[in-house]
């Protein structure tokens, strides 16, 4: 009995540790500047919802947030299309050079961002793609392909054998079989890939920092740091802007936590 209580006590302490910073951020974002610096009370006397309005306008979040949505949706869509095709070929088709392609995927997967972001910047200059939405999305897609293809390959490989041949006997073309039979069956894989890549694209910062100096194109992470380094904004407004930026992620995570957790483990254990 005491052991059980101790266990729950321990877990609760850890949960408070994990949750406290975000709770404290939310509380701060609803306080007045005065409360923030001189306040004796933990909670705001009266929640200052107007902080959020100020943050939205002063922080230009009306530009950055839609940008992030555009980048996330298009990069994830691209990753899903490209890596499900690649994963399918690797899992279910016998062709010359398969081992080499698989090895190549593993090899590019281990190229870390810090090794290539300088050269990626140079490449984008020569392609005329700095400050380009398309350029940023293409790099994001390419960064997500290796792991996603391997995850998809795993899901395709687990489908029953002979699916394609049976469908072919039914008169279905190969492409049709892929789109109508195979893809729907691999839905858990597609969801896992979408969830982990969605999070990683939304949170991407390094490339956004390097590739954009045009404010109107920046995603939210970059926009936030822009806001910080601007003419020293007020702390509570800064906290509100941060809260706005993280809210979509938190809501998404709470609803899709099972998929996130599964995606994380399938990605890491591949």
């Amino acid at each position, binding site marked *: 009995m005491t052991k059980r209580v101790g266990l729950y006590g321990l877990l609760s302490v850890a949960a408070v540790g994990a949750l406290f*910073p975000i709770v404290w951020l939310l509380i701060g974002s609803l306080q007045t500047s005065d409360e923030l610096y001189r306040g004796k009370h933990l909670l705001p006397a009266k929640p200052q919802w107007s902080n959020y309005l100020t943050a939205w306008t002063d922080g230009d979040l009306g530009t950055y947030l839609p940008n992030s949505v555009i980048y996330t949706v298009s990069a994830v869509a691209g990753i899903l299309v490209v890596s499900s*095709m690649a994963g399918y070929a690797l899992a279910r088709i*016998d062709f010359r050079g398969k081992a080499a392609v698989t090895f190549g995927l593993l090899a590019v997967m281990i190229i870390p961002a*810090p090794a290539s972001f300088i050269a990626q910047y140079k490449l984008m200059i020569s392609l005329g793609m700095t400050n380009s939405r398309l350029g940023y999305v293409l790099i994001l897609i390419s960064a997500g392909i*290796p792991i996603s293809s391997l995850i998809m390959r795993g899901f395709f490989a687990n489908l029953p054998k002979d699916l394609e*041949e*049976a469908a072919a006997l039914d008169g279905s073309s*190969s492409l049709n079989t892929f789109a109508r039979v195979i893809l729907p069956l691999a839905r858990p894989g597609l969801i896992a890939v979408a969830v982990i890549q969605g999070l990683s694209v939304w*949170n991407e910062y390094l490339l956004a920092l390097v590739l954009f100096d045009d404010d109107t194109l920046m995603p939210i992470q970059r926009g936030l740091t822009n806001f910080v380094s601007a003419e020293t904004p007020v702390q509570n407004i800064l906290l509100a802007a941060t809260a706005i930026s993280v809210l979509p992620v938190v809501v998404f995570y709470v609803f899709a*936590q099972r998929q996130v957790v599964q995606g994380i483990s399938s990605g890491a254990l591949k």
Partner: protein
Amino acid sequence: MTARSLEGVVLPRARATARRGSPLARRRALMAYVFLFPAVILLAVFTLVPFVQAIVLSFQDWDGVSAGTSYVGLANYKFVLHDTVFWSSMRNVLIFGAAGFLIGNALSLGMAMAVNRVHHGKAFFRTAFYLPGVFSVVVIGMMFSWLLAPNAGILNRMLGSVGLSGLQHNWLEDPATALPAVAAVFLWYHWGFGFILYLAGLQDMPVELYEAASLDGARGWATFRYVTWPELLPVTAIVSLLTLLGALQVFGTVQVLTNGGPADHTMVPTLRIYEEAFTNRRFGSAAAMSVIFGGALVLLAVLHLWFSRRKR
């Protein structure tokens, strides 16, 4: 059409047609090439070419603006060799990695075992523990610069209100505390990742193992030492390597928290590379740093792959 209904429908003759060299097999091979084409092209242009270009650039001189670059031989590497800040930044991230390995792993494993034991609130604890893992590096930086702020920060205020004002610090600007503070922030957002993997490992463990151990009279520590720990060793290997890789690549959080300061005490390699290129306008030596640093990371990743392959 479901997978189940299709199973067993296939005739032996249909199987035979899919042999290599048959028209169907050849058509499907063609399909494979078409399907792989977009992935290969994108990876070649946006990942592989820059990787090679980084190596080339490390032997060149470039200010980031002018069209031309000139070869300078090993000059960039010689320059980097004497950049003490770069090397101390490597040491800093190794400290993060060591902290993650010792403290983070223990925390991840301990909490995974605890969550695995309880009957109520499993989902809640799991969700809470991984929550920091979905925040962006920028958001984490913002949160902790506020928590650790010298006067209004909650940490110092709490220390003050319980009569421990002597322990108050300007955590992020005092050279004595800045690095441990950043390491603590890294631990805070990273341990949930190991926790998830450990929990998955524990849930995959056969119950019979524990039953057999308890029949043999194993209790508490002995069960852990001789059953849980060895069974989880492959997970520990992967978590440790991924933690190390994560620690080495820390960037955004540090940029927001301290920007490498005070006086480069919390500098990390990626930030150093970024500054060398975009502030100092020396892309050549920045590329040399990224080749050295990237090479080390690649080596680690190869180790990781080797471990995870061997596990199968």
